[in-house]
Every structure is written in structure tokens, then in C-alpha cells.
């Protein structure tokens, strides 16, 4: 380890932004807050991206580490103690100056502050809190702050961070305890899940105290649906899943995962058996008047470094949403940085398509009323490489299609490939005032190249289409192919050799 004193701010920013870039969450969403005179900043619930980096990922927040000094030795991490990299640390004031000045120039929407574990979790968290406290009170910053909770830090400090920040996250890192033991010997799921549980309970308490419901608000489409993973067990969609022979929620998760994993509290509802923070000393009254973590909690998992299946990951995701009331679960395709026998070799391409499929499925859980068990099962544990999860689901349930656009209910329309929450809502609203036809749908934003295999307007399909799995699958694969290829290869190469067997499905 090399410690050099007298790094310039620019060098520090280079090192600490570079070290933070593998953290995926860069959203500024979830909280609406008006600006105030004398303060700097506001917050928009939809989130605002300010730029897009060369890898196509959005830059919304100033994503930096407070320091990349770390006492832990997680095998996948660039900043592990056994790596010989240049170490640097910001002072809290430098973090504040950077945030405020970038913010005034409209470069960023706020701060994302994470950190390596410096000396001890408590010491690190204290430095983080100091920076946030300065930023909120001395620099009068009213914009978005996302802060990482360091597992193992004292409750008081975690609570203080919660009052100052808008979103908190604890990284789950890996979906099973076994993998975590293997790759991150200093971390345990128990230590990670405890602050997560406490943050979510404290959020719920604060929400109840100001007259809101204990659970975080979800999207309007989810509220409209009724079913889905955020409402209680069962519901219409759950029944449908059971009829079609899928594993329902009734089956205990313990059978699928090692005992000490996510099932620390089984599947209790969010507000049972609270264990929340006591009020931190040292904060002023004004700080305590802030809502506690108003934009909710998130977490992230690394995929592709360990042998978990997509089914396992998606089940875990659903479980996290239901049990910890998380706002988001992020997936990070593993980019090999260190050489280690327990990890994929250096130069292994990151599993970008798999990550993409998981995000698509995550959207289906959060906005479309799907359950993990409808999308995957023990027998089919991984996503189809060629088709997105929604098309894949529709193809396996052709008995439900085609759907008549002019009469089907909202939840059914939402399950048609090519139709999203917005266009589904527009369909339901506008068909009261006149019959809808395909050109209307196109204008409303329906992606007809996917949807037309599954819908009728006034009893007619757009083209004569056999409702036959192989035929539709072949057509849809053609539609998806360009997109899949782009995700997998980026735009490094422009051309590719056509393959008779792969491109025209002659082999199968």
C-alpha cells in the first residue's frame, strides 16, 4: 500500500471516483422536495440524470468514496487491503465544496457518498456523518444525498446519517451466505441485514408518525393493480400462477436457501417486531425534523462472480422487496479486477445481458404485478438469452392470448409484451370514448412489433397470425436480436459474420 501525502484535489477525485464506479445505484429518485430560499437545491421524485458516461450509464449523483483505505479483504473489490493501489481520502470539507459547486453548475443532482472501511466501521461512519452534517447545515445543501451505511457502525451514527440523507443503502454484495463467506471473509449476512432491518423499521415508524402508511409508496400502476409482490400474499395473480403449475409463495424459502440467509425473519410483514434506532445525540432539532430516509433504502448484488442462478437472484430480490420494503435492488455485472482462484479469470467479459434480463425482471416485479415464480422456476432457473422475460412468459401462456384491447382489464393488458404501465393506462382511459384500433395504439406508445402477436382490436389481429409458440418465438427473437447483441457487445465492433445456424434458427 502506498500512501502519498499532498495529492491535489483533482488526483483525489480521479482515484476516489474511479474506486466508486463499480457501485451501481446512481438514482436521484424517490423524494419530492421544493427548494427553499437561502438554501441550495431541491429534489424531484422522478429523478434527474445529468449526463451519460462512455459506458452508457447515467451520471446523476457525484459518486465518490470518502476514502479507499480499507481494512477488509473482499476478493472481488479493487480497494481490498491486499491490493497495492494508490490510497486517498477526502476531507469532509472537500466533499462539500465539490458537491455544492458541481450542483450550482447543474452537473449533478446530489451526492452519493460511499467509503472503504477506514480503521473501523465506526470511524468511517463518523467521517461520513461529519461530511453530511457540514453539507446540510453549513453549506445549506437541500439536494439529494445517497449514503452507504457501513455495517458494524454504531446505531447512533447510522441513525444520524439517516436523518441527513435521502436514501441509504447497505450492499448485500452476494445473494447467499456461502458465497459471501467465500469472497468477503470479513462480512456476514447477519451483519449486513441488521442495519437494513433497522433502517426499514425506522422508516416505517417515521412514516406512521406523520400519518402515512408504514410501507413506502409504490408506482401508480402497482397501486392500480392490487396484486403483485407489494400487496399481501395471494391475490388474483398469485392464483393464476398456481393454476399454471408454478410454485406459489406457499413454499418455504428455507428449502431453497441456506438457513442463515435472507430468512433471518422469515416472511414477516414489514411492520412486525420493530427494532429501530434510538435518537442520536449530537444532532440538532432541525436535523431531527427531517424525514428519516424519505427516498427509502436500496441494495445491490454482484452477479456473475458466484454460481447462483437467476431464479435464486430473483427470489432473493422479491424477498428483499417484501421483507425489507426496499425501494430498489440493483444488480452489478461482475467486472474482473483481481486475480483470484475463487473468481472468474481476468478478461472475462462482464455478463451484461444477464444483468439486463435481471433488471427487466425486476421491473416486471415492481411495475407489472409479476411474481418471481411466474418468471422462473427450479426447473428453468435461468432467463432465456434470446427473449426478454415478459415475451418469454407470454409465450409460455399462449392460452391467455390474444387479448381484446377494447375489453380486457388493466392487469391483463399490462401483461402483454410491448405494453407498459403508461400505454396500458392510456388504453383503459381512452377506450371509454371510442373504439381503439391499431393505429391508435401506435400513437399511444404501444410497441406493436412485439404486441401485435398477442392482441386483437375489435376482434381482429393486425396480421393473420397463428397462435403457435414456435412461430411467434421465431418472430420475436428476430425483433429482440439486435438489442441483445448490442447489450452484449456494446458498440466496439461494427460488423459480424452472419451465421446460418444461429441467425436463422436452422440448427434447432
Amino acid at each position, binding site marked *: 500500500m502506498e500512501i502519498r501525502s499532498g495529492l491535489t484535489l483533482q488526483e483525489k477525485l480521479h482515484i476516489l471516483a474511479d474506486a466508486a464506479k463499480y457501485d451501481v445505484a446512481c438514482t436521484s429518485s424517490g423524494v419530492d422536495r421544493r427548494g427553499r430560499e437561502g438554501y441550495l437545491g431541491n429534489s424531484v421524485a422522478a429523478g434527474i440524470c445529468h449526463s*451519460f*458516461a462512455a459506458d452508457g450509464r447515467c451520471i446523476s449523483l457525484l459518486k465518490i468514496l470518502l476514502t479507499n483505505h480499507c481494512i477488509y479483504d473482499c476478493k472481488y473489490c479493487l480497494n481490498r487491503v491486499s491490493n497495492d493501489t494508490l490510497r486517498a481520502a477526502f476531507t469532509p470539507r472537500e466533499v462539500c465544496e465539490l458537491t455544492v459547486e458541481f450542483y450550482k453548475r447543474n452537473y449533478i443532482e446530489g451526492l452519493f457518498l460511499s467509503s472503504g472501511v477506514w480503521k473501523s466501521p465506526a470511524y468511517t461512519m463518523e467521517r461520513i456523518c461529519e461530511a453530511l452534517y457540514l453539507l446540510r447545515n453549513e453549506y445549506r445543501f437541500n439536494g439529494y444525498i445517497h449514503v452507504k451505511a457501513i455495517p458494524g457502525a454504531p446505531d447512533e451514527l447510522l441513525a444520524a446519517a439517516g436523518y441527513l440523507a435521502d436514501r441509504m443503502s447497505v450492499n448485500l454484495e452476494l445473494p447467499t451466505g456461502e458465497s459471501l463467506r467465500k469472497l468477503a471473509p470479513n462480512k456476514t449476512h447477519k451483519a449486513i441485514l441488521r442495519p437494513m432491518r433497522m433502517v426499514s423499521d425506522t422508516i416505517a415508524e417515521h412514516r406512521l408518525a406523520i400519518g402515512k402508511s408504514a410501507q413506502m409508496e409504490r408506482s401508480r400502476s402497482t397501486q392500480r393493480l392490487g396484486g403483485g409482490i407489494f400487496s399481501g400474499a395471494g391475490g388474483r395473480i398469485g392464483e393464476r400462477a398456481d393454476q399454471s403449475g408454478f410454485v406459489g409463495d406457499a413454499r418455504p424459502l428455507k428449502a431453497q436457501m441456506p438457513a442463515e440467509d435472507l430468512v433471518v425473519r422469515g416472511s414477516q410483514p414489514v411492520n412486525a417486531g420493530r427494532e429501530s434506532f434510538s435518537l442520536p445525540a449530537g444532532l440538532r432539532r432541525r436535523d431531527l425534523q427531517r424525514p428519516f430516509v424519505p427516498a427509502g433504502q436500496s441494495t445491490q448484488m454482484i452477479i456473475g462472480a458466484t454460481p447462483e442462478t437467476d431464479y435464486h437472484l430473483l427470489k432473493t430480490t422479491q424477498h428483499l422487496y417484501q421483507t425489507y420494503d426496499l425501494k430498489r435492488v440493483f444488480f452489478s455485472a461482475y467486472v474482473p479486477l483481481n486475480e483470484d482462484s475463487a473468481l472468474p479469470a481476468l478478461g472475462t467479459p462482464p455478463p451484461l445481458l444477464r444483468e439486463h434480463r435481471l433488471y427487466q425482471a425486476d421491473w416486471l416485479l415492481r411495475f407489472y404485478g409479476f411474481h418471481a415464480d411466474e418468471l422462473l422456476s427450479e426447473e428453468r432457473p435461468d432467463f432465456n438469452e434470446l427473449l426478454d422475460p415478459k415475451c418469454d412468459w407470454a409465450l409460455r401462456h399462449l392460452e391467455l392470448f390474444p387479448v381484446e384491447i377494447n375489453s380486457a382489464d388493466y392487469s391483463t393488458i399490462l401483461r402483454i409484451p410491448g405494453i407498459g404501465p403508461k400505454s396500458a393506462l392510456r388504453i383503459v382511459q381512452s377506450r*371509454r*370514448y371510442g373504439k381503439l384500433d391499431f393505429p391508435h395504439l401506435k400513437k399511444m406508445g404501444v410497441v406493436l412489433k412485439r404486441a401485435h402477436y398477442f392482441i386483437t382490436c375489435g376482434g381482429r389481429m393486425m396480421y393473420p397470425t397463428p397462435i403457435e409458440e414456435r412461430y411467434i418465438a421465431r418472430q420475436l427473437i428476430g425483433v429482440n436480436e439486435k438489442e441483445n447483441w448490442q447489450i452484449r457487445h*456494446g458498440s466496439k465492433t461494427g460488423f459480424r459474420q452472419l451465421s446460418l445456424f444461429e441467425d436463422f434458427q436452422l440448427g434447432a
Partner: protein
Amino acid sequence: MTVFTCEDTFEAMMTCIYDAWASRLGHDNLRLQLEPVWQQGLFCTYVHVDADFSKAAKVVRSIQRKISYEAYRQVFLAAMSFEPDRLDAIYRFLVLGFASGRKLTQMMSRPEVVWIFELSRKANTEANYFREFTRFSQVGQVYVAHIEPKCNVTAISAAHFADRMPSEHWMMIDDNRQIAAVHPKDQAYYMTRLTGEELKQLRKTEEEEDIYTDLWREFFESIAIEARRNSECQRNNMPLWYRKHATEFQRRARQ
């Protein structure tokens, strides 16, 4: 056919709608058009309408009361779009609207409604983009931003910045339309027209560089993951024409 023409301002457009309606010529016998009129029709009479605040206010009030606030929002956004026929589109939308009332914006099977929906969506999307991609540079105590939007979104985006930075001096300049939103510290912002000379002076502000522009470029380059490089995705999310005034895409002046 009678054609009512007016200037390209929201007030003039609303006045034009008022006068066209009040002319009682019948909706099918008249058309509305924005100035300048490049080519006149052979059998058309042209009537120029000047902006009148009280007439415009009456139209706005009627839209809000007799149709809905959402309809007014869509009309305003559509008026800010760059479609040449937008004024006539708005007129047709309102003809249907005053007949059908609140449900107007949901009647997506009607072409008039879809047309305005599309125009307003376009303008709204662009206003949101300029909320994101506008970059200010510091000149003394003032933060100055230059933009070149296709739709006339300066006023809409400025409302966001007025909330975001209430206690800063800042201004947003639309280089093509030569208009600016000016926000003095702790006051409401206002729109103003710039003369050619003023604009020339203000153009120079963009070359202003300080330590934070360099730091931002440094951050922008450090945050990308090389193994995931995907410029196509980047282009989809941030098309090239938005990058013209974005600090991180401008070449460093000092190097």
C-alpha cells in the same frame, strides 16, 4: 377560406384563437397560421391578429374552467413545440374540447387529441432534457447557461432552476431565439429578449473555465467502466445535439 395569422408568442396565439372563434365564420371556413407566412394561398383572405392580454387571458381561463387544467397544460406545451402547424392543431383541439369538456384529454381515438398529445409530449420531454443537460458556467457572481433547444422550453426549464437555486444569480439563454430567463438572487425570474450585441457579449461566458470545469471532466472520465464501454447506449440516452453546450463534451481549452 380566411386565415388568421399571428406572431409566435403564446399570448398572440391565444388572442388569435379568440378572434378566429369570435369571427363566427364557421370552424371549417377558417384556418390559423403562425407568422411569417412564406407562401400565401390564392383564394385566402389573411387577417393579422395582434396580441391582446385580456383576450388571451379569457381563452386561458375558459380552457381551464370548461375543459380541464390538463388540457391547458397540453395546449401550452404544444404551443412551445416547433411544429409549424401547431396553432391550427390547438384550435382543432379546442373546438373538440369545448364540445366535450373534461374528458377531452382522454379521447385518444380522436386525431385532434392525439396530435396535441404528441406535440405536448415532445415539448415536455425536451424541457425535461434541458433540466438535465443544461450547464451553467460561473462568471463572477452569476451563473450563465447557453442552450439551443428545438422547442421553446427556456421558460419551462427555468421554472425548475428557480426552485433549485432560489438564492443564486443565474440566467439561461436560448441562443437561437435570442431570449433569456434571468433570475436575480431571491427574486422571481423573468423572460427577456436579447439584442444581437448583448448576445455576442454573453456568448463569451461559455469559454469561462475554472477548477470545477476541469474537476467535472475528470470525474466524467473516471466514472466510466472501460469493460462496459458502449457509445451507442450513450448516444441513445444523450443524443449528440444535446451535447453542444455540455461542459464534459467540450474540448479542454487549456490543453
